[in-house]
């Protein structure tokens, strides 16, 4: 299955980017949760390392098989993840008000992370099966759109606005990329704008609040505005060179809420300054471009949509998370790939990378 030519074609730049990001993430996690030492179980950074190791194992497993095998499991995987999402709503463990976790034999995981991959697989398969020669119209899109909406609504129910939005964004990105008729595009945009009030109606109060607060953070310094203000102070006080490793006062003194998950980057920006944050921003830019490159070089439609979707995930996640930390985007709770603490997130990201590497490796050998 694996032959030497494949190894030569491994996308080493992409792999290196990932490894560097993980290293930065773990070091940052060490700093962000430094104060927690003495808590129960292994420290966060150590757990993150275990998860990363497991993610790498899955990545290697993926490399051994031709990615076309994924065609036959795409739909079953999609339905399994839908079932898991339903399971979360029924049996889920709830942490700070949202039910996002399923616990199996003392391991908790977040099915919504898995859905990101399985949804892209399902979309890729759909577009592979339903090739058309014109730009997409409504009739061509309502089925894939339904495929997106189902998990998005289930996730919104948890409630996890960030991930639900992410699914919508990434699928819209894929649709747009594949080409949508102008008329369809305009009607959709009009439809979205008109349905915003309805969407607003379905949001939970605190979600509405977050969006309002984002528009005017100083209006509620006690509540949701607190995240944004404190994060901005942390990032801004980093200055050019930063305060140095383990020396960020904002992070260390716990001004920052969720400093090891969604706001991990604020800790980094405080301790490593503009220089450090620019390194991370650049690494993510390169990661997204490299992923896009895989899509560009792919030789069939399944691979292309798959690679596109994965690129879109990395793009949107890093954009939303970083935007949130610097106060450009409402606080919606999206982890920064490889940097934020979280087993499900890092494993899902590494699976995504595995698929990208696989596609890239096999692009020269089409026959099988």
């Amino acid at each position: 299955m694996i032959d030497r030519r494949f190894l030569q074609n491994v996308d080493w730049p992409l792999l290196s980017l990932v490894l560097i990001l993980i290293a930065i993430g773990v070091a940052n996690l060490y700093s962000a949760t430094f104060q927690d030492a003495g808590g129960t179980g292994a420290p966060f950074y150590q757990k993150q390392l275990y998860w990363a190791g497991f993610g790498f194992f899955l990545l290697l497993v993926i490399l051994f098989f031709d990615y076309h095998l994924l065609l036959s499991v795409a739909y079953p995987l999609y339905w399994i993840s839908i079932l898991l999402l339903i399971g979360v709503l029924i049996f889920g463990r709830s942490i700070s008000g949202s039910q996002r976790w399923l616990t199996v034999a003392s391991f908790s995981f977040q099915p919504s992370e898995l859905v990101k991959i399985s949804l892209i697989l399902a979309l890729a398969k759909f577009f592979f099966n339903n090739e058309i020669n014109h730009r997409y119209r409504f009739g061509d899109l309502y089925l894939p759109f339904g495929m997106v909406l189902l998990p998005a609504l289930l996730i919104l129910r948890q409630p996890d606005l960030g991930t639900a939005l992410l699914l919508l964004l990434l699928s819209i990105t894929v649709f747009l990329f594949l080409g949508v008729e102008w008329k369809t595009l305009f009607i959709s945009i009009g439809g979205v704008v008109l349905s915003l009030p309805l969407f607003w109606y379905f949001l939970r109060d605190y979600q509405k609040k977050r969006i309002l607060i984002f528009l005017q953070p100083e209006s509620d310094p006690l509540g949701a505005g607190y995240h944004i203000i404190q994060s901005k102070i942390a990032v801004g006080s980093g200055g050019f060179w930063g305060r140095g490793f383990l020396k960020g006062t904002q992070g260390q003194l716990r001004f920052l809420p969720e400093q090891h998950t969604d706001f991990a980057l604020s800790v980094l920006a405080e301790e490593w300054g503009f220089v450090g944050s620019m390194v991370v921003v650049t690494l993510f830019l390169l990661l997204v471009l490299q992923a896009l490159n895989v899509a560009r070089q792919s030789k069939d439609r399944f691979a292309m949509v798959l690679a596109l979707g994965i690129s879109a995930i990395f793009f949107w996640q890093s954009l939303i998370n970083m935007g949130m930390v610097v106060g450009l985007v409402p606080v919606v709770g999206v982890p920064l790939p490889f940097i934020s603490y979280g087993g499900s997130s890092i494993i899902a990201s590494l699976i995504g990378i595995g698929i990208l590497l696989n596609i890239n490796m096999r692009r020269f050998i089409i026959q099988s």
Partner: protein
Amino acid sequence: MSRYTFFEKEEPADLPRQFFIALCLIIAVFFGLAGRLWYLQIAKGPYFKKLSENNRIRILSIPPARGIIFDRKGIRLVNSRPSFNLYVIPDDVKNWEVLKEQLCKLLDLEQEQVEQRLAQKKMNPIHPIPIKLDITEDELGRLESFKYLMPGVYIEVSPQRNYPLGPVAPHVIGYQGEITPKQLKSGQYPENKMGDFIGQWGLEKEWQQVLGGKKGGRFLEVDATGQEVQLLSVQEPLSGNNLETSLDWDIQKVIQEAMKGKPGAAVVLKPDTGEVLAMYSSPAFDPSSFTRKLSTMEWNALFADPYKPFQNRAIQGQYPPGSTYKMVTALAGLEEKVITPETPFYCNGALPFGKRVFHCWRKGGHGSVNLHKAIVQSCDVYFYNVGIRLGVDRLARYAHMLGLGEPTGISLYPEKGGLIPTALWKLGRYKTAWQPGETLSLAIGQGYNLTTPLQMASITATIANGGKVFRPYLVKRIVSPEGRLIKAFVPQQVRQIPVNPEHLRLIRQAMAGVINEPGGTGGAARLVGLVAAGKTGTAQVVALGKRGGRDHAWFVAFAPLESPQLAMAILMEHGGHGGEAAAPVARKVLEAYFHLPPRVASPPAPQAQSEALVEEKNLD
């Protein structure tokens, strides 16, 4: 070529263009991010650095004023007074030893207590730790003069519940308590943080959203020594809204006094609306004891009390209704045409049925009895006969129609539904068939029947108002602190029971006889200048408990007979006979409501009183 290939077919001409557009967009977006980082870290860097250097944002919340709870005439049942609370923000403390020493000296606290408090929440160094709540003005003065010695000490003024009339219907009004971790997690209190006081029981809990208001906050900038530099912004709190309840303090007061020291419950309703004029459960607790944090010991003492002061017996207590249930049996008998008002039954003191003999409370018997006499004198044998003719299920249907066997729907936690048995119910519950003899017990309100005082008050109201079942309610209006009407609640009629109005009238007449005719069992509620109607009841206590084996005493009543203005149910646990223990409470309520002179202990017709005293449980 492989079946997977795509681009050898017709590659869309614009694909490279799409990639190019994507590339440009991605780069542009990342440039935007970089620009923002530049702005925050380089351009505004020194500004933010200063902000964080001084470690300097302190958030002190300003608690909102909690809404006032009024009675129906505008009397304040519950309001708030300011309370001064002392907090320490650990991160601002410069010298712990000095701080502890000063606090002990100024506040009359033990060193240990202070240390215990301070050890509580080491988690977040900028989170204020409450040291002492509700400090006195003296202490406040002393603190202010020595505050410069103790950076990190903050005083917050928060409204504290105040009970100007003493505990008024504490089970109804409820109390406030510190929010529990479980409530915090539930997401139902997004406004609240650990340490906040919220309504934990009764109206305080049911109307937390209305009464609670919205917190404000002071966003302070503090320098490196912990002293306030400037106020960055203030968000004024939003006061809670006031509740105008249907309670009548005059009646409530009378009941509380009459029931002091005797376990039981009383409910008074307005029959034409369902408004609750009074609701009391005895023994009660003092809600003001919750305004400060109770120690575990105090909690345990309260909860270990065998008389369960936290139980709202008016809605949670489930008791057999005893003879007060005979109205239901009478109505069912008339409606189902198994009797007419004149159908006579002969009572010689007992009725053999099956293998058993069912006794009447009066050993000598009542002689020939018709409906009116049966209710007035509470003849058991008469109702055994009606029960036999009706059967369990027909009887249950009328009980359900009147609203028994299910919660009335009053919005007060936690209302119980009672139990009205049917043959099917028994089969499901005990896996045995219904015994016809059991219907006899049911017909006089014993056996499996269980009702709450609220339900009994409600069915009395329904009989009084000609068959309308209302959902009882407690809050009439929500009013803003400025007095603007926010919401008014209207009576909710649940249903009109489909019965002949004449039958209800006959029952009302007989109930008037209970109080006013010689031989009536309710003479203890008789008043000059008012024709009231009622019914006594004695609920058998099957398991003779630890607290003495006397039966529960019931009395239900409405008045005046024509166009009733109030309906009530009084239950005295282990009070013995209804006419003796419960009827006097009802009389006092009537005196207060109709402004009648209190009856001096002059006995009514001697015969009536002796009857009232000898009503006995049915020893079947």
